[in-house]
């Protein structure tokens, strides 16, 4: 579904990705873990072209990620942001129908009905007419997920979806994500929630200094890491938690 081969990315002098090889199969949940600055968010942002990678190839469902393929790719993969990035001047419902109506030309009535279903799914139907600014972080992120689903994506990229949330709000977002995983959605998730990764992810990839240092079955990587740096990272994160 999503493949990266030899992907590099530099910001000026600094090499952020130094040859990333990664494959996400259809219906798979893959968690990217790693320290801050390791490049894991940049991997996501290269997949939907928010950053242009320098070398290597990225394919999404057979479409190459480049200037020509970008629109097709963005139709197939949706993104959920760390800071939600809901449009603050539009209501919850308007946020969800924004892309269907104003990008893909879906009939507003139809899009609205579908959006209300999606909002019900993330338990936000009661807030359909609120502005994002009136909602808690957890609520906003659930709307962010509904907005992503409204694209009818084949895969969803999650960029640290719970990192900006109050601790007591993390659970409600992870619950929605778990349900999506159970329904077979292809998900690539940058996260610090090791417990969630262990429970929900099919595979885990540990990103360190711009490369995939280790990847494998979630239980394997998180319980018996082969690499010393993976073990060090896990020890550090789990200690904090």
């Amino acid at each position, binding site marked *: 579904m999503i493949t990266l081969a030899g992907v590099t990315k530099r910001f000026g002098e600094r090499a952020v990705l130094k040859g990333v090889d990664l494959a996400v199969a259809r219906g798979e949940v893959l968690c990217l873990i790693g320290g801050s600055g390791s490049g894991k968010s940049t991997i996501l942002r290269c997949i939907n072209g928010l950053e242009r990678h320098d070398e290597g190839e990225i394919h999404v469902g057979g479409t190459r990620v480049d200037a020509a393929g970008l629109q097709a790719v963005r139709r197939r993969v*949706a*993104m959920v*942001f760390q800071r939600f990035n*809901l*449009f*603050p*001047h539009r209501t919850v419902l308007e946020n969800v129908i924004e892309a269907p109506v104003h*990008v893909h030309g879906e009939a507003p009535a139809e899009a609205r009905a579908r959006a209300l279903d999606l909002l019900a799914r993330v338990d936000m139907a009661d807030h359909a007419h609120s502005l994002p600014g009136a909602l808690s972080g957890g609520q906003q992120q659930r709307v962010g997920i509904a907005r992503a689903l409204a694209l009818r994506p084949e895969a969803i990229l999650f960029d640290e979806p719970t990192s900006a949330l109050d601790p007591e709000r993390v659970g409600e977002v992870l619950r929605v994500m778990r349900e999506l995983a159970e329904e077979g959605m292809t998900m690539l998730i940058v996260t610090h929630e090791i417990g969630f990764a262990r429970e929900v992810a099919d595979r885990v990839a540990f990103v360190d200094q711009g490369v995939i240092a280790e990847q494998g079955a979630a239980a394997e990587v998180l319980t018996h890491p082969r690499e010393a740096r993976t073990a060090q990272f896990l020890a550090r994160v789990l200690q904090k938690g």
Partner: protein
Amino acid sequence: MNAFLADAQAFLPVLLMGLLVTLELTVCALSLSLALGVVWVVLGRARFAPWRWLSQTVITVVRGIPIIVQLFFIYFVLPDWGLDLPPFLAGVIGLGLAYSVYQAENLRGGIGAVDRGLIEAGDALGMNRFTLWRRVILPLGLRHALPSIGNTMVMLLKDTSIASTITIAELTREGQLLAISTFKNGSVYALIALLYLTASLPLGALVRLLERKGRLA
């Protein structure tokens, strides 16, 4: 005081007609200045470099020439080149163009304050440049720019008095004509000043109303 009230009673009908023209001029020039301001900002952020140069050049040139000279150019010089505009239209174009560069500056500031993440959200949803501007960047940038646009609006209202120099019968010109024919400079200019002041007050209220309506929570 009684003399002033008597003068006011005599002059106000004429001056109010002038004020009406002033307000029409303000509304038309304001609309044009905002539309052109958006154009300069969009061109200024274009990927194609010559668009950016064009925007920069227009802003530099227009900002560097006094409004009165621009008006004279449009009203007195363009006819030599075969473009003979009626005074009101010439005034709208002149003031609208002159003020568009200030509006561009206001809008640029407002757009600069738009959260980068929201633009990325629009990108990630597959918006093309046009949709992104129309649905995200401009609506949010306008909200951020509203206070400075309001300020510019008041300046424009007052600067429409410059249009008196190209025979537009707005407030200042009507007043001048009255003053010349009656020699009652004190009463006439006091009334004019009061009318401009009165007209500027609702603008502040309008901006506050728009800001409240555009609140994001």
